[in-house]
């Protein structure tokens, strides 16, 4: 056996595997991969202690490109597999990569339950509002009217909002990011990693082939400032380079976008982001272009007890185990058959 001394710290490229990356040229997944490698390095992760679990989809190829342990499982089930990994080995750092189809169509139930159980792991949901791998059918996040091979006349269904769903499911860390906005994405990944419990990150990811520019209404450079609201705990909910902000429409429970300086509005009127407020998080998650900017960043973070609990079971003494098992087997009613004289 060769003793392997791990280097003290790792740089992003230490997290790149030797496998050729096979997403379409221009796919947003590349940027997410890059940000993840960077974030892993920055949080001081160790490849050997890190596990990426994924389902099926373009996005779910993610683990192959990371030099960590990885398990590309089956469609929709990554949260369940990852729960098993984490409960069996609480010391491992577990991440899930999933897509809008993998995570919210076939995998919706497992996503609900991993969030509810608050298993200590990070979930990256690549939302491209489409099924990439199976060639472009609409997904549960596709906006109403999306035309696709399976919806030639446009979808007639309301999409699910990943962030609202995650909050409704009991998620305690819910964030949003954009594939190409690396700086923010890396920071959010780091915050997710720091959070104890399930961290859910929806990444708006551009599928150049089947749904190109679907997020253009808020990701295009020209509209980015107007249409992106990056939230920060304790900071006012400002956007458009600080010229606009959100306040509670007086007398209602609705957020309203206002312009500083107009109608006597000052920065003091602007709501302060409180990442521990679930009602606020829900309202932020519901904002939509064109009338409202998209809320990005850590919408909600409010830690509570998570699974696995402190390793109470860690206290098993292997040497004592056989006797303990013997004792357990003898618990309750037992009786003894004596060896008989005549046998």
């Amino acid at each position, binding site marked *: 056996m060769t003793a392997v001394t791990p280097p003290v710290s790792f740089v992003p490229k230490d997290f790149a595997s030797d496998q050729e990356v096979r997403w379409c040229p221009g796919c947003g997944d590349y940027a997410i991969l890059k940000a993840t490698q960077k974030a892993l390095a920055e949080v001081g992760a160790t490849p050997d202690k890190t596990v990426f679990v994924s389902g099926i989809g373009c996005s779910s190829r993610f683990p192959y490109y990371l030099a960590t342990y990885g398990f590309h*499982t*089956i469609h929709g089930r990554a949260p369940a*597999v990852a729960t*098993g990994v984490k409960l069996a080995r609480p010391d491992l750092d577990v991440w899930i990569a999933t897509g809008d189809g993998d995570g919210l169509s076939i995998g919706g139930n497992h996503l609900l339950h991993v969030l509810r159980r608050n298993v200590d792991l990070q979930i990256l949901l690549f939302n491209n509002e489409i099924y990439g791998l199976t060639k472009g059918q609409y997904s549960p996040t596709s906006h109403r009217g999306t035309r696709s091979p399976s919806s030639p006349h446009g979808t007639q269904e309301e999409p699910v909002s990943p962030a609202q769903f995650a909050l409704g499911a009991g998620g305690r860390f819910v964030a949003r990011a954009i594939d190409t906005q690396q700086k923010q994405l890396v920071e959010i990944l780091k915050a997710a990693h720091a959070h104890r419990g399930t961290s859910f990150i929806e990444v708006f990811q551009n599928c150049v082939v089947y749904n190109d520019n679907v997020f253009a209404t808020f990701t295009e450079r020209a509209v980015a400032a107007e249409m992106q609201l990056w939230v920060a705990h304790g900071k006012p909910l400002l956007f458009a380079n600080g010229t606009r902000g959100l306040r509670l429409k007086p007398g209602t429970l609705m957020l309203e976008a206002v312009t500083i300086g107009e109608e006597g509005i000052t920065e003091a009127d602007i709501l302060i982001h409180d990442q521990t407020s679930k009602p606020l998080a829900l309202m932020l998650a519901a904002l939509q272009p064109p009338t409202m900017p998209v809320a990005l960043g850590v919408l909600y973070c409010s830690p509570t007890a998570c699974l696995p609990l402190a390793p109470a079971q860690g206290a098993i003494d292997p040497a004592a185990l056989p006797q303990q098992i013997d004792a357990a*087997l003898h618990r309750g009613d037992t*009786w003894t*058959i004596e060896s008989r004289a005549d046998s």
Partner: protein
Amino acid sequence: MDQINPPVGSLQPRPTISRLPLESAVVRFAGDSGDGIQLIGNRFAIETAQSGNDLATFPDFPAEIRAPVGTTFGVSAFQINFGARLIKTSGDAPDVLVALNPAALKVELPNLKRGGTVIVDTGSFSERNLRKAGYAGNPLADSTLADGRTIEIDISRLTLEAVKPLGLSQHDALRCKNMWVLGLLYWMYGRERQSTIAWLGKRFASDPLVAEANVAALNAGHAYGETSEVAGDITGFSVAPAPLPPGTYRSVTGADALAWGLVVGAHLARLKLFFASYPITPASPVLHLLARQSELGVTTLQAEDEIAAVCAAIGASFAGALGVTSSSGPGMALKSEAISLAVAAELPLVILNTQRAGPSTGLPTKTEQSDLNQALYGRHGEAPLAVLAARSPADCFDVAVEAVRLAVRAMTPVIVLSDGYIGNATQAWQVPAVADLPAFPVRQETNPDGFSPYSRDPETLARPWAVPGTPGLAHRIGGIERDYETGNISYSPENHQRMSDVRAAKIARLAQAIPAQAVALGPDRGRLALVGWGSTFGPINRAVSLALERGDAVSHIHLRHLSPLPANLGELLAGFDRVLVVEGNNGQLRALLRSEYLLDAEGLNKMTGRPFTIDEVERAIRDRL
């Protein structure tokens, strides 16, 4: 019909008198779900075991959670077969039936052995109860009970009288009825009361009055037996100890034994046991038992569904634990996609299926053996794995240990088939000493030199188990076809053929690691072999042993390993003129044996939700000899 006047003031012990010796006996307790039938059944079983008999029991719960009092669908029953010989089944028809209300009589009477004895509580045969049971008239008054011996006792009244001095409410007093019955049965079969009295004291420690009342009822029932015996109304029996190997015994259900087998199997492999399941009848008791074993290092997860359960188990196996999941037919169907992943990923995994009667929801509380095909073939693609079946409650322990051994040996999923009958039935089980069992410690990979996650052990063809957290072995696996050498994704045609072949070969090769098939009973070759798997063991074995006693040339072959089949099986079967496959389905093993050995195997099949009776198997033997 014997109407017995209760002996008044007869609670003093009487001198023991001569009893009728029996080789074995089948007793069935039946009453309303609220009557405490399971409780006295279990207690009777324990005393019987203590007295040295071998035994098997079967609790027969109603399908409804809590049916209205007095209805036929609310009848709860408990059957015990015990004897001076080795006992293989919980018995065909009872010799003695205890019916605590009209509904119990209605439901159970048809199953009584011809000429058997019925003990009824006449106190419960009110108009209202008769109507609820669906009786037009009173069966005690008409010819319903003509065939056999009926002992009519107003147990309700006698119980009330026995506990009267304690001043309980009528309701509470009547709840002691079951203890009165137990007392009577103790007397009939010569059982001691001491330990039951002690147990009652403990059970009702917080309520000494209730404890006392139960003891009073127990004693009263016992005394009643003594008195009647002297009067010649009730016969006392004696059943000598069975020739059991010396040791410590306990009674286990198949579910208990599976659970303990997993705990011990994981320990013998030196692995942590991770058990994920979703409740389903009749599989849940394994989850319940294991959920209580966290001090033994067992982790359990009640998953959101069966898919999550198997996936979590797979994740745990990937992470280096022994992943186990369990379910019954409908849940097994849901797990099949993920089991295929475990086949592809080549991870150890144990999957328990406590079969119930299907298809679809079917009869959840009834037994069947109809999931063998599903276990063998119920996956897409060619996804070979190992399949084992347990033959009896106690055998569940050995089979669970064997499943762990094979799973880690070949890095493969192993399906274990049990069923609702052996899952709930109990048997006396000799408790092993864990240290005496042969260990099979798993070697997980740690050496990065030349490591490939899909390199293979030349003997077993197993790939290395390289667990996350191990320095230098980080790798990626998945369900897409993997390169034979590197484990990376491969779309190569030749590689897929090679991998398909090696997956099949790996399972086939397990045949080298399992014992040759032996004959369970009877000669090694001859005119007729009865072949079974799983819970048919008891009835086949007993029927064959009776036939052998009669001098018939018949053998019993019972399979534990269904995939791969034992290497010598074809040859063994070829030594018989006729092969009769006895199974609780439409001929699933039969089809496998026919295809495998081109053998004109016949089938004895049954799908009533009930196990075979010894009698049914005996008749099939007679028809063929």
